């Protein structure tokens, strides 16, 4: 039996249809079928069967009133299987968090309907006090406006993995927030490919005329977490968030101070490998030298790069470069 037709799935779908239908009162068969991914014939079969459920001494009408005509289906509000049901903690959390998250996106609730819905939802859930904060980079609205209007943007972008600032012309395609930051996947005319940019690293953005008229179909957004740095080629790669390799990317193996393991745990691509004595050994995917420099400096002096050994030079030379700011050498 296919998973789509096992009893649990059918029960869930039946209850979903009835609860929805109770609010609608009556709906065209075609619309109801499309809504629940059924053919009209399958919907009618399922509902006609359900209309016969119910057991003596209770008449079916008391419990479950479903009327199927040639064109429409309807049910009565208040029948046993058509009333809204309590949410599990996970479901309640999911809804409250989703509403809170969207409210944290500037400009997403201009008519206030989501805020009003959330008040009602949270009252029913027992005022759970869930809050979601998202960054709001100053240029988020500019990028979103260009995306909605299909506009080109001329940007100044600081790439953290290479520690370089450069000018680019981009056509935004997708805007998303992940792991605490906003990202935009955009066609980059300099690179002639799709690149990922962290919105808070865009230092300036100016409209640069309409984008190409031919609209490339959007790949479906998928995948949880964000990529490590903002400027990788993401053409046809991995879902949003997966690590996107670049020219400087490599695996680096390091032995760290056990007290600093928490920092590695925050890096999506970092994995613990065998320990050497009491020194945990981790492997990280590194996008560029500057990225590894940051990590090694934050991990502190009790960190040793095991492989590749050439990367042992990175932390001391970065430290010396920064130290120059603190002890200017008159030359």
């Amino acid at each position, binding site marked *: 039996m296919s998973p789509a037709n096992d009893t649990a799935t059918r029960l869930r779908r039946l209850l979903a249809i009835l609860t929805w239908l109770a609010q609608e009162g009556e709906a065209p068969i075609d619309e109801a079928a499309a809504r629940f991914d059924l053919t009209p014939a399958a919907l009618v079969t399922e509902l006609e069967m359900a209309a016969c459920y119910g057991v003596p001494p209770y008449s079916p009408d008391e419990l479950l009133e479903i009327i199927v005509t040639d064109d429409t289906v309807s049910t009565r509000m208040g029948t046993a299987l058509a009333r809204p049901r309590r949410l599990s903690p996970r479901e309640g959390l999911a809804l409250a968090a989703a*509403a809170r998250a969207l409210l944290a996106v500037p400009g997403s609730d201009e008519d206030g309907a989501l805020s009003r819905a959330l008040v009602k939802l949270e009252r029913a859930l027992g005022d759970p006090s869930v809050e979601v904060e998202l960054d709001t980079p100053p240029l988020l609205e500019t990028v979103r406006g260009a995306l909605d209007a299909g506009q080109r943007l001329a940007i100044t972008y600081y790439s953290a993995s290479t520690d370089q600032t450069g000018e680019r012309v981009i056509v935004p395609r997708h805007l998303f927030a992940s792991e605490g930051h906003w990202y935009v996947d955009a066609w980059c005319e300099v690179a002639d490919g799709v690149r990922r940019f962290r919105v808070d690293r865009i230092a300036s953005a100016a409209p640069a005329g309409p984008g190409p008229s031919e609209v490339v179909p959007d790949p479906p957004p998928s995948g949880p977490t964000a990529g490590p740095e903002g400027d990788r080629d993401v053409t046809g790669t991995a879902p949003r968030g997966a690590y996107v390799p670049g020219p400087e990317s490599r695996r680096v193996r390091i032995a760290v101070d056990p007290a600093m393991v928490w920092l590695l745990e925050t890096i999506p691509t970092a994995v613990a490998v065998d320990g050497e004595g009491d020194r945990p050994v981790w492997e990280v995917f590194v996008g560029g030298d500057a990225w590894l420099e940051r990590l090694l400096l934050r991990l502190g002096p009790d960190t040793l790069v095991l492989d590749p050994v050439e990367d042992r030079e990175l932390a001391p030379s970065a430290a010396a470069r920064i130290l120059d700011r603190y002890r200017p050498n008159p030359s």
Partner: protein
Amino acid sequence: MAPPDRLERVTDLLLVLLDTGRPLSLREIALRVPGYPDGHDARRQAFERDKKLLRDEGVPVATEPIEGDDQIGYRVDPDAYYLPDLGLDLDEQAALNLAVAGVHLGEPIGREALSKLGMGGRWPRRGAPLPVVDLPLVDGLPALPALFDAVRSRAVVGFGYRGEQRSVDVAGIRFRGGHWYAVGWDRDRQQARTFRVDRIEGLPVAGDPGSAAVPDGFDADEAFSRDPWHFGTGSAVEVDVVVDAAEASRVVTELGADAVVDRADDDSVVVRLVVTDVDALVSWVLDLLDHAEVLGPPEVRAAVVARLEAVIGAGARP
């Protein structure tokens, strides 16, 4: 005759259990719900499968002791099963649906929740696609729903954190910077504390509903300190950091415009941070490489220099 459809049997079972005012024994259930096999063992087996299916679907099938030979009865308490109608207007329903469509929770749980509220199925697409937000919700965060439930039922929770057992009156759940946190009152430490949910060890164990005792006037937002350099317990010191143009925009986004005390013509900014954990601040400053410099006070500047010298020293060792 074809055997009765199992969906029919399960649906009838749900109707009977909802409708009964008292717990019913399996024998009584089999009299009311057609489709159970005759043999005692086969009937028990079929019923147990149906009960499990209902429970897996979130139906609170209660097991209660009853008088008589059967000893155990079953029912579904309508109050535990139904939600009072939320009274959502159509535009409010549409807004909630958009939120579920635009926020990726890592699984279809938001859709299931909407279905239970009568907002199931596909919604027609309209307008420009909204930005998408990823919220890690259940993947790797089994503690989160338990904490959520503890907040709403006002229950004290116990859990392991950094190798110690904590007893916490959780006041709220917050998402910031890509992570979920629980904010509350740590009973053993008698202090407001913030816990990163992905570092909680094992599943939190909740006390009885109403057992939480969050102190009067406890403000979860205030207790949820803004920045990691606030998590320390040292005395607060104001630290000025100059950040050059390459990173200025990102830093101002992170800290808020209020932190900026000076802006120079070259687009660098000076930001002022209130710091109780100097190590955390040093880590934050070093993440900016040579795009940032601590201007003062001298002891914090010295801490940065000491860290840098230690890294250089470690690199010089064979």
